């Protein structure tokens, strides 16, 4: 039986970049522990020794690897609210109230 304690929930939430309040930490810990209980059924199956590609016999359909003058399928301007000189303009970190180096 796997118990997902509050420390683990917070760790996983950090990995998933999700900010959780304390009530969510408690609720998710309980729900995840209960769901993982059901996952014990995974141990009851006679499985092959190693994994293979799934679904089987899937052949990736690849295009020819040639350089194209078009770097994007669509113009940059259509992909973002603001673009300049072929580049997407994003907000400065300072504009978000943050300090540089946080990432």
């Amino acid at each position, binding site marked *: 039986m*796997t118990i*997902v304690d509050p420390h*683990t*929930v917070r*760790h*996983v*939430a950090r*990995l*998933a*970049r*999700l*900010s*959780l309040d304390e009530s*969510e930490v408690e609720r*998710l810990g309980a*729900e*995840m522990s*209960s*769901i*993982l209980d*059901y*996952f*014990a*059924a*995974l*141990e*009851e*199956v*006679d*499985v*092959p020794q*190693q*994994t*293979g590609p*799934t*679904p*089987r*016999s*899937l*052949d*990736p*359909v*690849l*295009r020819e690897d040639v350089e194209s003058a078009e770097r994007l*399928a*669509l113009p940059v301007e*259509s*992909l973002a609210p603001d673009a300049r000189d072929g580049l997407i303009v*994003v907000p400065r*970190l300072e504009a*978000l*109230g*943050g*300090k540089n180096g*946080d*990432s």
Partner: protein
Amino acid sequence: MIRTIDEAQRLLAGGSTPEELLERAAARQAELEAGDPALNAFLSTIDEYTPQESGPQADGELEGVPYAVKDNICTLDLPTTCGSLILQGYRSPYRATAVARLEAAGARLFGKTNCDEFAMGSSTENSAFGASRNPYDRDRVPGGSSGGSAAAVAAGVVPFALGSETGGSVRQPASFCGLVGLKPSYGRVSRYGLVAFASSLDQIGILTRGVRDAGRVLEIIAGADPRDATCQDRPAPRASALDGVQLDGQVIGVPNEYLGLGLDAGVRAAFDASLAQLEAAGAQIREVSLPSTPAAIPCYYVIAPAEASSNLARYDGVRYGLRDTSSSGLEDLYSRTRARGFGAEVKRRIMLGTFALSAGYFDEFYGRAQLVRQAIVRDFDRVFESEVDALFTPTTPTTAFRLGEKIADPYDMYLSDVYTVSANLAGLPAVSVPIGNIGSLPIGAQFMAPRFGEETLLGLALRLEELTGYACPELQETAA
């Protein structure tokens, strides 16, 4: 109401314009939304019907036929929100290949349908924009996650709709709403423009009132696409081939693991009656075993959330939709935006998936689930190679459940996919067909076939539809 593609084409042949058909869809939609409670099948609809220039499209297979698209499939004309606050108002700069092919065939988009957030759910109750309701009983769910598409077709707004399947999200709502729900083989229909949930499982599907319409739409949207490397270069299944499939001589397997605990007695009785009809019409029925079935739900609920946790990492407040501006730095921006933008079920699955992939748990959960997935594939390979031509099972253990009935217990909700997830895990085509009803509530049963066996699959479904006399119950308006 416009129930079928044929009906739409008869109206067009009789002089109606495509714009008049869209207006007809809008009138039906308005009638349903005026109900108390409203059906809430659509998140957005086209509100200006500009006549399209006739040209090379004028003799398209679906010229002028209105249709709907689940809101996790990209369109140019309407937003694509995936039922999520994090993508509220988002407009895609490109359209899905399936949508482009329908438009090239002349079909006209009427609206985008409600769904569980990022297609995670079995009832549409996880939509950030309110649950859809079942047209047969508005106190009940239409199923999910393509519940809006199912409700829209069942209520006669449009004759067909696209949905998407990751673990049963087309077949389960089709079963709950008295429709045909087709999940093609993995690799049959391009996923380009289908917003990714679990990329090794996702596939665009079709909801219609009858099998022939599903076959006609599949023939148009199927086939290789240079924009999706997993989409196979094979000829599209031909709708005209369905009539060549006869029941006589077909061996149809019934896996005993699908008739166990949790199966409603009324659903079982309807299923048994259909089985008897298939047998009387010449099919040979054989009991088979798929021993890995009990692990299918846990396997799915490890693999799908693991892939989702990766796919949904892109919603970070920088590139799409919602951005939390109270943040104190980049990491904080990511975490707060995601906390505000994602609903409870999406957070639960991201957490489950991240957990299953994290150091210390990877082998026990994700690694093990991949092996179990292989075992499930092996089970199907064995029965299709040596025992049967197709499999036949109930689509869902029960008819449509009440709103709120399962929302408090996530695992109970997950179990409503118990008969559908295996086809996704194995990449098989499957189709749910209405076989009867309990009171006002429809019941569905599904065929599953070997990979890329859609012509046989739909041919069998068509024969069953003929035998059951088109078992989709007449819609009694349950709310004014």
